[in-house]
């Protein structure tokens, strides 16, 4: 079976867009503008107050050791996850930390006190208005989604027609071009329940009765050398990609999701996925430049390096098949992709609150 995309057969690794933020949106030393100030004292008893209420949004926790040697820190936890803390506050010292909290019950934890655990109840809606930079990032990526789902429908339509007509040679020729736009935006497609498995599941990913979409047809064309019985599968595929096209128009995006998607695309070495990751990265890059310009530069350099390494394998509009690569080739590519993905994985935490 040949594929024009360059795969290092790392198996399809879509991680899904479930990875949005936990309730807390990251701690920082500087209080964001408009943050609510909350004062806490460390005493022998623990945190004072031990029960507090706050509206959803940014909060600056100002902690002061009011003369206890038993307690020297305060943490805010969501379940067992520490969202923010100030440590090493010995007698007389004070300090602060900032958190943006959603509605919910949080634990205030002052270890060593007579009563270590208190509660912070946050109510109301988080003001989710994004900064202009974040809005620009989302708008830019939304445009890319639209462009690619439009292209997906445009390229899948003639492919499906060829399959329905039983024209194997033509269907084989049209297959790669239809795959490319899908691969670029796969992390977003995966956020729509069973749409991604319907379009893109591999044979062993799903029960045999649910094996459909691109890879079912691919198996028929290449492994079985027939299009028999594939007409309904192809027609369903076209309906599914059209459904995807409609859904991305209204998808609710967050900058962190886009950044996560860039990393997720690199579980597999394929040129279209690398391009998808690059566009996703570029959308959020202005947010990253503010917090970590060095990382932004490194990522740019790594993308360049990966493209340079892919160059020798270009073959017309596509790439040579994976089978033509030597072990040295695949190892070099995998190494560079791993380096790039490791850097990209640092981005979401950096752009939170941007």
């Amino acid at each position, binding site marked *: 079976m040949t594929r024009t995309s360059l795969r*290092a*057969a*790392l*198996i399809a*690794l*879509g*991680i*899904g867009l*479930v*990875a949005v*933020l*936990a*309730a807390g949106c990251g701690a920082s030393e500087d209080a964001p503008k408009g943050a609510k100030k909350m004062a806490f004292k460390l005493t022998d008893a623990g945190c004072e107050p031990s029960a507090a209420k706050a509206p959803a949004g940014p909060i600056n926790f100002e902690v002061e050791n009011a003369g206890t040697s038993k307690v020297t820190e305060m943490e805010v936890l969501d*379940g*067992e*996850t520490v969202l923010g803390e100030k440590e090493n506050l010995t007698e007389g010292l004070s300090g602060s930390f900032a958190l943006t909290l*959603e*509605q*919910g019950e949080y634990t205030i934890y002052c270890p060593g006190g007579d009563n270590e655990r208190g509660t912070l109840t946050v109510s109301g809606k988080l003001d989710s208005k994004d900064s202009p930079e974040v809005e620009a990032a989302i708008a830019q990526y939304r445009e890319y989604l639209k462009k690619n789902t439009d292209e997906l429908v445009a390229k899948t339509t003639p492919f499906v027609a060829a399959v329905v007509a039983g024209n194997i040679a033509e269907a084989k020729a049209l297959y790669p071009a239809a795959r490319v736009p899908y691969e670029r935006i796969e992390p977003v497609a995966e956020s729509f329940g069973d749409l991604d498995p319907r379009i893109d599941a591999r044979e*062993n*990913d*799903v*029960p045999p009765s649910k094996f459909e979409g691109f890879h079912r047809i691919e198996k028929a064309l290449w492994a079985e050398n027939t299009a028999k019985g594939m007409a309904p599968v192809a027609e369903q595929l076209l309906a599914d990609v059209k459904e995807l096209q409609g859904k991305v128009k209204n998808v609710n995006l967050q900058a962190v999701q886009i950044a*996560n998607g860039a*990393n997720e695309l690199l*579980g597999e070495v394929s040129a279209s996925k690398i391009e998808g990751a690059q566009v996703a990265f570029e959308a959020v890059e202005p947010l990253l430049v503010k917090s970590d310009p060095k990382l932004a530069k490194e990522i740019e350099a790594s993308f360049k390096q990966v493209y340079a390494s892919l160059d020798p394998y270009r073959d017309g509009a596509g790439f040579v098949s994976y089978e033509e690569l030597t*072990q040295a080739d*695949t*190892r070099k590519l*995998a*190494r560079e992709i*791993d380096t790039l*993905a*490791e850097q*990209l*994985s640092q981005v*979401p*935490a950096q752009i939170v609150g941007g």
Partner: protein
Amino acid sequence: MSPLTRRRLLASAGVGAAGIGLGASGYLVGRDTAEADEGTGSVPFYGEHQAGIDTPAQDRLHFAAFDLVDGSRTDLQEMLREWSRAAAEMTAGELIGDVNNERLAPPDDTGETVGLLPSRLTVTIGFGPGLFEHQSLGLAGQRPAALRTIPSLPADELDAAQSGGDICVQACSDDPQVAFHAIRNLARIGRGTVAMRWSQLGFGRTASTSRSQETPRNLMGFKDGTANIRAEDLEAMRRHVWLGAGDGPAWMRGGSYMVTRRIRMLLEVWDRSALSDQEETIGRAKYSGAPLGESEEFDPIDLEAEKNGKPAIPVDSHVRLASASVNDGERILRRGYSFTDGVDPRLGELDAGLFFICFQRDPEKQFVAIQRRLGANDALNEYIKHVGSAVFAVPPGARQGGYVGETLLG
């Protein structure tokens, strides 16, 4: 010169006596006592059940699968008799065989455990479905209905060279060299009758099988086996692990079925996923091991719990899909090990993961049913692939002077 023994060598070297519980009568202390001396004790080979199933999981593994190459039923009987004798000697900390000090003869024992303690070695022998298909053995009629090659499961990427086998030996010990020595010497004894098909070293246990053990972490950094069956829970062992009267052929009574899976973890990808992703994939907090939404490791898994209007333990998380309550109450005794076999030659990434071993009364109803659910829906599938698979009927233990497999071949 008096016969050379590991024990004697130890005593003369002035080590070993401390903490092994050497009684005046010798080294053979009861299993319970021996287990208290983790790392140094010896676990008896003979008993109602084979050791290495309800034995508190040792730290190291060497596992080997063999194919029958030739030989009659008598040859197989003879090999199993010799294996059992050697296993009993090794688990007791003795050198195997009689000829170890003959200048012109190669020693029976290969010798790398001289000076080492028994280290709780257990040797567990099992029979794969293929064994029953060898005409020369005439065993076709005795294959248990429950012993069938594991069917193809969702997300499988099996390599035949790391799957299957007619006979297996699981050697577990707290000392890796002791485990290796067991496999090496049994392979040597079996030469001509069996040939090694594949083998696997495991460097760290990933499950607790006793309440006396801390839950270890697997290579993903998560505690593994928190909800495992504990050997002390005799009712659960009887219900899920040991074969009783009416469980297939009489020769398997007191035995169990073992399933092994070589599970490669895509650690490079896992390592760069966010903590929240990792925890939602597993369904537990990474450091405490608590089910999401709870605070302590052994808090019950509450599948109904909600957080912000969504299930606290995600619907595709590993603990939810593996939990007994979504699997018709079915459980398995897990006894796996972390492994690494160097570098994946194609990608230059770590070839590492979990060598999964489990014991049960019925593989189809237990392992296969659970894995079918996991393979189809588990969020963890993004980070793992099953590359090896095997199933074995593990017969009951041998009585003193008998051998493992005697109930089948005797």
